[in-house]
């Protein structure tokens, strides 16, 4: 899956020492917070993402964007006071639809990012901790298999296997997007398991699973956080293409559905749907990319050392 092939420098392990000392900036998170708060493009990106998040929450609680499916405007109406961005082919308000789609995008992004990060962390940590054993081989094999099936064909197959279930798209994305996270976590865990704190835990008889969950996975959180933001962006971008192919959002509305609706309209000279949905999507993805980049800069210990 090429959408999630970001390169993250394999920095030395950032061992969290928070709590051991009251100097907050000694820990990787304290340093990262300090560094991130001074990164202007990252803060701008975060700000824009938060604005979108508030819009999505508003839709969620029913404050705005509720008239997205009402048919009341003219066919292909232009911008007016009632319909800020005009109205679509059957007279639905494009502004309301764009606002409502923000919720759809966050739903997809959050569900896919959280689940694939959890799966990636678990399988990556298992593979790394037991690297060289059959557990590792099976997980690597599974990853290789999932990476070798063309993504859109895989989604189409899952959609038909689940017989039009609206969650088919999410299932397909989660089952392919965890692999990059898994690979990065595996690499980190292979390094981590040779550290003294793991050896110490083992020496006093802590069970292996407890070591993985209590001592190892928490030390990969900086990778997981960055990967989650990358997967979020990949998920909402994939939604657009999947919705165009008829495999995406089944009920409700999304930017992808609006853009695929517009593919026939633009040749007839009606651009409102296309421009509104593209602009909403572009600004969110751009802001998220900026946020993600700065987060990566702030959390990569190697880069901290360089600057």
């Amino acid at each position, binding site marked *: *899956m*090429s959408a999630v*092939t970001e*390169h993250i*420098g394999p920095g030395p392990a950032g061992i969290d020492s928070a709590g051991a000392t009251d100097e907050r900036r000694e820990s990787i998170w304290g340093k990262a917070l300090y560094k991130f708060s001074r990164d202007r493009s990252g803060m701008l990106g975060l700000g824009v993402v938060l604005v979108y998040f508030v819009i999505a929450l508003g839709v969620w609680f029913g404050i705005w964007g509720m008239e997205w499916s009402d048919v009341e405007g003219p066919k292909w109406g232009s911008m007016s006071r009632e319909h800020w961005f005009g109205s679509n082919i059957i007279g639905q308000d494009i502004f309301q639809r764009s606002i409502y789609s923000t919720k759809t995008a966050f739903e997809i992004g959050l569900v896919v990012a959280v689940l694939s990060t959890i799966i990636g962390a678990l399988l990556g940590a298992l593979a790394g901790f037991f690297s060289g054993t059959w557990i590792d081989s099976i997980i690597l*094999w*599974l990853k*290789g*298999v*999932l990476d*070798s*099936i*063309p*993504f*859109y*064909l*895989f989604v*189409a*197959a*899952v959609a*038909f*296997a689940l017989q039009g279930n609206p969650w088919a798209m999410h299932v397909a994305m989660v089952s392919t997007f965890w692999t990059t996270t898994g690979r990065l976590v595996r690499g980190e865990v292979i390094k981590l398991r040779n550290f003294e704190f793991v050896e110490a835990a083992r020496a006093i008889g802590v069970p292996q699973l407890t070591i993985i969950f209590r001592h190892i996975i928490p030390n990969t959180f900086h990778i997981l956080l960055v990967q989650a933001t990358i997967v979020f962006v990949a998920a909402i*971008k994939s939604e*657009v*293409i999947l919705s*165009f*192919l008829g495999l995406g959002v089944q009920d409700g509305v999304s930017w*992808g559905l609006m*853009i*695929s609706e*517009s*593919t026939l309209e*633009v*040749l007839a*000279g009606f*651009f409102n749907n*296309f421009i509104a949905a*593209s602009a909403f*999507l*572009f600004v969110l*993805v*751009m802001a998220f*990319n*900026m946020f993600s*980049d700065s987060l990566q800069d702030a959390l990569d210990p190697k880069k901290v050392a360089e600057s």
Partner: protein
Amino acid sequence: MDVLQYAIRKLIGGIPLILGVSFVSFLLMVYFGPDQTFELLGKNPTVEEIAEVRRQLGYDRPFLMRYGEYLQEIVTLDFGLSNSTGEPVSAMLARTIPISLALVTPGFILGNLLGVLLALIAAYHRGGWIDKTIMGFSVVGMSVSFLIVIIAFQILLSSSFGLNLFPVRGWNVHSLQDYVMYVTVPTLASVFVALGYNTRFYRAVLVEEMTRDHVRTARAFGIQPGKLLYKHILKNSAIPIITRIMFSIPLVVVSGSLLIESYFGIPGVGKITFDAITTGDQPVLKAVVGLTAVLFVITLLATDILYRAVDPRVSLK
């Protein structure tokens, strides 16, 4: 002889991957895929007719037997006739694969070539305004959806609202001139999108090489920028660059062209595979998925041999 021995060992090592890919896709696309029984029957079929069609389609046999037959088909490369058109699958592939290749090759080459070039420029001027401008454009390229780029290029270049230079959609190629007409807009769109990701990735690789000691030494000796970039930086970063290019080949051939093909209505291999999934045309699906898995293993092998070619320290073991 070494290379040949290595290749054979590597191909045998790729068998679990082929088995895995074919098993997962068989399970999803064929076993749980759409049921064609009633599409092939007339109205009010009798129980015997239903049973007869199901037997022809192979639905009545146990799962493992059907999977075993599929593996046999991969080995013999004989996938039978398409359920939808009755055409031999091999003929369909022979017709559509060249179209897909002709469609994606220019964009793929340009996207990588320009990506490396821009990345070299950006890395050389690291931290300066040239670097910042290039990387700014690359983030923009990463943030625009492929579909939006396609539509935007279509409006600009092939509609009456723009320059109206190229055909809107389709693939009616009989001469080189036709080819250029139909391939330009899809190529521009895919180069635009690929440049965003490629430039970023290649720049990160090149910058890492650029901070090495041997580069500083070469600079201290007053080497020319062109020679430094080519001989000391580009050649030493060949391995990650080759890896990225090689691994994107199988996906670009099958899946990368799907969006372009279905948007522009071009009858390539991505399009027939997608149609096969939606209609449940199992022979076509089996062929494409099986061949993709084989292509993957061959790519893995070719990548390793290429590593050896660019870096003599890599040993084929």
